[in-house]
């Protein structure tokens, strides 16, 4: 084997890039199923909880071009064991507003959508119960949180320490319901060939989807193939199976043709999950020098009646700062809402908004620079697990960020800087996200002519996995990029968990590295280091979490510094510049990594200033259910963003030293913005998003 320069780390251009900029990379709907495609459109419940009392499909069935109307009365029975809202059309019960109560299959999308309006449905319904509050009597402690975290953690005597603290903060922060809203809407195209199902689908991990389809349709492994090489964003909503995949397969089965179910943007607000709203009380106690003595973080959030999704909101508080007395709790209310799901950095994203806002409030109470406050509370070891860090460079991120941003000499006082009618402020917050590794399998085929095929059911939802995995493969095999053909996004490929939890590259990359090692070993042992003329096929895997995961606490860290300007007359907020610095282990591709950090941070700005889904408390529905009303940041909302990362070599996390970068950028970003807003205006807005109305509310003028 020839040696080549290490590709990992290089800013290799995206190998899927040329097709994406032209628009020729085939996303789910754009695949060729080999026959004309029929369309599915759905009727959705207009009540939150109740039962269908009448459902009349006859008018819709009579419309020319309508192939079938599926209802709970005639829909094929699905297998037992489907969770949450996956038993589509299996009962007359309604559990959330927007639930699919009937589906039309038609020759064209125009016909299907028109026929939906012709299906008459009546309900017997309860009053909707959609409002989260901290005084609900039905709040309960879930058995555990997402990702297996403990529901509560208690160390020492928080109340006693708070009572004795020289300085305390006691504040409640709220984040609203948020929706992932990838720009590609969830879309599933299904075709049956006998008892074999093919689904071209927008998801974050085909294997995840296959399992539910097997359960739903009583299929064996090998009878279902889910194909998803290109996915138009996901941010968590495409991680798990949602009703759309089940319904597409069901509809195709009923009509015996290829069908596509492309959600509408409005349907994206109830059928594919959301981030729970949170109400978070944070109490901090510190001595006069700013050393924390107590941290308490109590979270109230929601889940649906038919699923338990307990977002791990206070978990970053378990790792970020040292304090002898600490407590985190999570309580849920079951509301008449659609099932929540993961959205970019579930837990860390809302949790860090609260914790890092509270740290800013504490810094102000103490009269200490907020960077210094954080540095003073840097823990030697994981403060709750009491194990060492595999690597931790938060302080270096804070120092480097301060330097790049020009933080030195910052005036601590709020509301004193003006530039014309702009009030100007700066803010800082930390970022953190756990580094994990998951089981993944890989198959590497060496062809006699020196080409290599690397196969793994990884997924590129925009992360750059196509490119980064090719780089990793080329390095691991010791060949050039051009010699590697990567295949991902297909459940027929070797198993891998989906893109989620920032584990993708860490897990898939490790599987590739380990498999490539096995390739080299076999080549050396059996073929004298040469690739045999008839090629070689080697399977390998990474079994799961890092073997060091028990002994070490593994996290990526970062720091955001932002400038915010607030119009004194109107409360409009602008973000002209920011610096974000990360220490996140090995950076495999400098070019795509920059985009990941940038995208995560910018989404955090969007969360801070724009995002929030609003439920009508009486009618129970999500009111702003489209992209004109659910605001996400536009190009004009994002200023000059300086992205930087530190070299970090972590020998414990995985084979490549990768910590994962897809999510850390969003964590803490909203707090940095809110802290800068306070510094600009002297107004502390503790409920996101910070829209102009809140400026007037904070001033007592509305």
């Amino acid at each position, binding site marked *: 084997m020839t040696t080549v320069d290490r590709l990992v780390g290089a800013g290799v*251009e*995206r190998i*899927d*890039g*040329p097709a*994406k*900029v*032209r*628009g*020729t*990379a*085939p*996303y789910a*709907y*754009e695949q*060729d199923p080999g026959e004309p495609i029929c*369309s599915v459109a759905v009727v959705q419940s207009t009540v939150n909880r109740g039962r269908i009392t009448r459902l009349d499909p006859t008018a819709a069935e009579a419309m020319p071009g309508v192939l079938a109307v599926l209802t709970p009365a005639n829909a094929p029975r699905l297998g037992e064991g489907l969770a949450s809202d996956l038993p589509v059309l299996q009962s007359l019960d309604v559990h959330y507003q927007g639930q699919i109560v009937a589906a039309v299959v038609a020759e*064209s*999308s*125009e*016909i299907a959508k*028109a026929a939906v309006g012709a299906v008459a449905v009546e309900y017997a319904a309860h009053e909707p119960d959609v409002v989260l509050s901290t005084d609900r009597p039905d709040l309960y402690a879930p058995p555990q949180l997402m990702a297996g975290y403990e529901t509560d953690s208690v160390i020492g005597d928080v109340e006693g320490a708070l009572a004795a603290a020289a300085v305390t903060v006691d504040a409640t922060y709220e984040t609203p319901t948020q929706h992932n*809203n*990838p*720009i*590609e*809407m969830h879309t599933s195209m299904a075709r049956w060939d006998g008892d074999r199902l093919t689904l071209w689908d927008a998801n974050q991990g085909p294997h995840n989807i296959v399992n539910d389809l097997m359960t739903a349709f009583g299929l064996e492994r090998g009878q279902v193939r889910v194909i998803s090489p*290109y*996915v*138009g*964003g*996901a941010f968590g909503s495409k991680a798990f199976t949602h009703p759309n995949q089940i319904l597409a397969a069901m509809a195709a089965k009923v009509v015996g043709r290829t069908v596509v179910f*492309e959600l*509408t*943007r409005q349907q994206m607000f109830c059928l594919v999950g959301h981030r729970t709203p949170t109400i978070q009380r944070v109490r901090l106690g510190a001595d006069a020098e700013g050393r924390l003595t107590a941290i308490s973080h109590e979270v109230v959030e929601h889940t649906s009646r038919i699923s338990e999704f307990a977002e791990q909101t206070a978990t970053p508080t378990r790792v970020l700062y040292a304090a002898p007395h600490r407590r985190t709790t999570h309580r849920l209310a079951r509301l008449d809402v659609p099932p929540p799901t993961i959205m970019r950095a579930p837990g860390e994203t809302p949790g860090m908004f609260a914790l890092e806002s509270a740290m800013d409030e504490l810094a102000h109470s103490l009269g200490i620079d907020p960077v210094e406050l954080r540095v003073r509370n840097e823990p030697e070891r994981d403060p709750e697990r009491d194990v060492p860090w595999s690597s931790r460079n938060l302080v270096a991120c804070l120092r480097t960020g301060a330097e790049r941003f020009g933080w030195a000499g910052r005036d601590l006082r709020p509301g004193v800087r003006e530039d014309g009618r702009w009030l100007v402020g700066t803010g800082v917050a930390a970022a953190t996200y756990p580094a994990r590794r998951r089981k993944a399998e890989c198959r590497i085929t060496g062809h006699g002519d020196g080409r290599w095929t690397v196969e793994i059911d990884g997924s590129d*939802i*925009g*992360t*750059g996995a196509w490119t980064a995995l090719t780089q990793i493969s080329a390095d691991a095999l010791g060949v050039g990029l051009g010699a590697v053909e990567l295949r991902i996004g297909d459940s027929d490929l070797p198993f891998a968990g989906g893109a989620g939890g920032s584990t993708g590259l860490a897990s898939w990359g490790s599987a590739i590295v380990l498999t490539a090692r096995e390739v080299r070993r076999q080549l050396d042992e059996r073929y004298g280091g040469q690739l045999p003329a008839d090629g070689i096929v080697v399977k390998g895997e990474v079994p799961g979490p890092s073997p060091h995961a028990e002994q070490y606490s593994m996290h990526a860290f970062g720091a955001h510094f932002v400038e915010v300007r607030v119009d004194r007359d109107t409360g409009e907020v602008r973000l002209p510049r920011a610096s974000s610095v990360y220490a996140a282990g090995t950076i495999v591709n400098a*070019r*795509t990594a*920059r*985009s*990941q950090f*940038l*995208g995560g941070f*910018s*989404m955090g700005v*969007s969360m801070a200033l724009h995002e929030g889904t609003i439920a009508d408390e009486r009618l129970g529905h999500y009111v702003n259910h*489209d*992209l*004109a009303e659910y605001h*996400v*940041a*536009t*190009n*004009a*909302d*994002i200023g*000059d963003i300086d992205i930087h990362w530190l070299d970090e070599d972590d020998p414990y996390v995985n084979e490549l030293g990768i910590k994962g970068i897809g999510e850390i950028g969003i964590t803490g970003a909203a707090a940095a913005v809110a802290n800068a807003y306070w510094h600009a205006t002297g107004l502390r807005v503790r409920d996101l998003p910070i829209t102009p109305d809140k400026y007037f509310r904070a001033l007592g003028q509305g």
Partner: protein
Amino acid sequence: MDTQITLRVDGADHPLTVDTRTTLLDALRERLRITSPKKGCDHGQCGACTVLLDGRRVNSCLVLAVTVDDAEVITSDGLAAGGEHPLHRAFLDNDAFQCGYCTPGQVCSAAGVLAEARAGWPSTVTDDLTADEVDLTDDEIRDRMSGNLCRCAAYAHIVLAVAAVAEAEGVRR
């Protein structure tokens, strides 16, 4: 109600039958299977469906196909007909996308922005409305590109990409 029309897309004529209800976007994607323009909202709110219609950028999801059977449609794919388009190169150079789903719309929109700037059209951030020419500053690019949402939030890189082409082509900055 079915109607016969001919769509001229990326230089080729496509006679086809559409429902009067069919939008240009659905005619392209669902009937002709020309899938370079994407659907992100179907209501003019995201810009993923942006194409050049007789040279102007428009949201093809709000245009009824029957209304444009005499028009010329160019998609991002069509921009590359004569070889790699400078905007494609700039988007690649600056990694101005992640998932790529909004990207063909961003590219078409950027082509529109450059043409509009050359024509001296102002924007909401233009200070001097009466100036003969506009300077396509970063802030100008930001505002002009704001009809194209990018949930991956590649915005800062999109600005770099558009700016690079503007500079290369002598559009005032």
